[in-house]
């Protein structure tokens, strides 16, 4: 007898009130959560949306973070006598951005985006990616800024004393050294981002978590579906962690 047929039988038995053995119940639940009515497709679709949101948000967050970090660092490293009004205003805007974004819950930001700012839009992936990108940018900015500041001030002085200008010194001397501190932290930010996207269920986007919720609603049992998506998240995070660790090791090796 084929496994699917066996599982269908178990399903009917269970509906009739027959008590199944542990092994039979496990098979039945698995069948219901993933195989019946091709439900695995929901997880695949959900995972696709989760990854789409995470990757788009990372790209947006990185670009935003880069700009904010550049403004903040450039402003802080300018001599007091030479600060321009324009740069001062930009710096204040950047400070407000990081303060507000890091000071309010991600969930609230997401709801505001979906139900206030873009309430007529149905592009849920876009809205989610935008929200997470703006959120992530504030953290990425601090990661980049911290990385740049972690490089000894003597390096900037040595570069400038050789006649290199500010941007040349940044590009050839400071940034290559800062990257060692920035990249691993960025990897961790991506991991956090990936997991945190699960709250997009709140705006109705069918991500991986939503898939589990939908299946749970249909099968009246959440064990398999929820543990299933937990495992999928875990697998994705482990792959990312492995990549980040490899990167870290390679960067460390480049020193020698």
């Amino acid at each position, binding site marked *: 007898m084929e496994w699917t047929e066996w599982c269908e039988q178990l399903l009917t038995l269970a509906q009739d009130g027959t008590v199944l053995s542990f092994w039979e119940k496990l098979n039945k639940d698995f069948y219901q959560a993933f195989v019946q009515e091709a439900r695995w497709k929901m997880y695949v679709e959900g995972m696709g949306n989760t990854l789409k949101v995470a990757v788009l948000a990372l790209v947006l967050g990185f670009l935003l973070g880069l700009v904010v970090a550049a403004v903040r660092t450039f402003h802080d490293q300018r001599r007091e006598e030479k600060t321009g009004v324009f740069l001062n205003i930009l710096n204040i805007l950047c400070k407000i951005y990081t303060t507000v974004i890091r000071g309010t819950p991600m969930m609230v930001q997401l709801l505001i985006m979906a139900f206030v700012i873009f309430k007529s839009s149905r592009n849920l992936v876009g809205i989610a990616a935008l929200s997470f990108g703006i959120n992530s940018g504030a953290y990425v900015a601090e990661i980049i800024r911290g990385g740049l500041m972690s490089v000894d001030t003597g390096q900037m*002085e040595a570069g400038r004393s*050789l006649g290199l200008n500010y941007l040349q010194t940044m590009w050839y001397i400071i940034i290559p050294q800062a990257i060692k501190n920035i990249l691993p932290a960025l990897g961790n930010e991506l991991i956090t981002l990936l997991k945190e996207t699960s709250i997009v269920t709140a705006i109705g986007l069918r991500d991986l978590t939503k898939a589990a919720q939908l299946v749970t609603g249909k099968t009246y049992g959440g064990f398999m579906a929820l543990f299933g998506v937990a495992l999928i998240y875990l697998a994705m995070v482990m792959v990312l962690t492995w990549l980040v660790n490899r990167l870290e090791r390679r960067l460390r090796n480049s020193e020698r």
Partner: protein
Amino acid sequence: MNGKQNEVLIQVRGLEKHFKGGEIKALNGVTAEIKRGEVVVVIGPSGSGKSTFLRCLNLLEHPTGGSITFDGVDLTNPKVNIDVHRQKMGMVFQHFNLFPHMTILDNMTLAPMKVLKKNREESERKAMQLLDRVGLAGRAAAYPGQLSGGQKQRIAIVRALCMEPEVMLFDEPTSALDPEMVGEVLEVMRDLAGEGMTMVVVTHEMGFAREVGSRVIFMDGGVIVEENSPAELFGNPSSDRLKSFLAKVL
């Protein structure tokens, strides 16, 4: 180095530097001149402002008041492009400040290639010549982390020389070194002085000051207290502050 001996290269007038909005007064009106070919050694107790004075010369610290004229150009004028003038002022730091992510050779060729726009071949030839002179040609492909302190400082000196500067500024170049490595660095500096390089050296090495210096400046409390030839300054100090300083360090 060239025929313009005794011409004033750096003229410092009434130099003042305050930190934290005037709370700390590091320099209180320093006036000095450095002639071409001179080796000026600056000594003094810690906190006397001697390092600040040196760092003001190439505007790593921006003076609060006074002026610095280098090669006829007032560096404190905000319109002056300081990068152009820094090329001609080599600087050696207490903590070497080599670029740890680059090989020794890349450390030395970066500025000539990016600032002077020399090609790689020419820059590397010059760098190898200089490395050879300080006996480190074999370490060209090494990274700074693989070198001893003395070697790092010798590299830092020749890295600055790659830009063919008109003056070399030394900010306590031997203070971070193990005692047995001080000699090799001073040796390189002595050779450099012998070739007629204009040098301003902040140091605690009184032996070097006495032997190599053409003039010694004693600073305390952000001002120049005494200034004289080494023989006079060490042999016949006139101020009480210098006398008590020398009594402690000699």
